[in-house]
C-alpha cells in the first residue's frame, strides 16, 4: 500500500490553481485500501457548469458518478478542480457525460463506472444522459446490463 500523502498533490496543498478550460491533468488517484471486497462509491457534483458550444450560453447540471473501484480511486479535490475546468469549455450535454466517464475509466480502470448528467432545462427541455462502463469480468458486465436496461424507471425532475 502506497503512502497516500505521497500519491496526492492537490489535497492539502496551500495553494490551489483553478483552470477554466478542460484540464484532465488535474485528476489524481489514490490506492483502494479494500480491494478484496466490492463496494460502491457515489460522487455528487451539484455545481457542474459548461458552455453551449454553439451559442456560448452557460449550461448547469448535477453530475452523479457511481463506481466500483478496482486498484485506483479518484481523489475528490482533484475531481472538483477537473470538473470546474469545464467552466469555459463548449460541451454538448451528451458529449460531456461521455467525456468525463471515459476520462475516469482511463484514470482508474474501475470494475464498473457510470456518470449521470442531470442538466437544467434549456428551451423547456432538460437532458439526462448516462454513460456506463464495465470491465470484462462477467459480474460487472451483468451489473452494466441490468442498470442499462432498468435506467431511469423513476426519472427525477431537475431545474
Amino acid at each position: 500500500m502506497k503512502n497516500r500523502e505521497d500519491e496526492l498533490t492537490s489535497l492539502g496543498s496551500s495553494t490551489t490553481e483553478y483552470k477554466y478550460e478542460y484540464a484532465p491533468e488535474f485528476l489524481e488517484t489514490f490506492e483502494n485500501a479494500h480491494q478484496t471486497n466490492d463496494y460502491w462509491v457515489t460522487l455528487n457534483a451539484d455545481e457542474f457548469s459548461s458552455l453551449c458550444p454553439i451559442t456560448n450560453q452557460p449550461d448547469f447540471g448535477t453530475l452523479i458518478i457511481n463506481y466500483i473501484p478496482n486498484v485506483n480511486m479518484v481523489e475528490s479535490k482533484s475531481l472538483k478542480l477537473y470538473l470546474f475546468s469545464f467552466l469555459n469549455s463548449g460541451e454538448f450535454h451528451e458529449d460531456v457525460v461521455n467525456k468525463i466517464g471515459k476520462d475516469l475509466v482511463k484514470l482508474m480502470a474501475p470494475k464498473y463506472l457510470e456518470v449521470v448528467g442531470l442538466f437544467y432545462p434549456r428551451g423547456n427541455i432538460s437532458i439526462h444522459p448516462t454513460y456506463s462502463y464495465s470491465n470484462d469480468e462477467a459480474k460487472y458486465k451483468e451489473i452494466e446490463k441490468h442498470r442499462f436496461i432498468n435506467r431511469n424507471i423513476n426519472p427525477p425532475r431537475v431545474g
Partner: protein
Amino acid sequence: MALKKIDIREGTKIEYSSKELLFLAKSGQPYRGSLYVKFTSLGETIDLISFKKYITSLRNKTLNAEDIAYAIYESIELVIQVNDLGVVVDLTARGGLQQRLNYGVEFSPIIKNNIFQV
C-alpha cells in the same frame, strides 16, 4: 454587461429568481448560488434578455462572496428607478458553511422546486 430597461405599469411588484448565478471568488474558485431580486416598479423594469446576459457575465467576475448581493443591487439601481429594491443571494456551501446575503430591502424569497413550477 449593461442592463437595459423597459417601460411597464407603475406599481407592479416584481420578483425575479435564478438558480444559475455563478461568479469567481478571490481564490479563483467558482461560486454557485441562487439569486432573488424584488422591487416595486416606478414605471420601468429590466429587459429580461439583458438581465440574462448580465447574470452570465458574472461568470468571469472576481468578487468577495459577501459582496455579490451588493454588486447586483448596484447594477440594477444604476439602470432603473424602483421602490423597495432588495437582492438576496443564497450561496452553496463552502467548507460546510452556507451563506445567505441580502442587500437593500429584506424579504423572504419564494423558492420553487424547479423553474417551471408556478
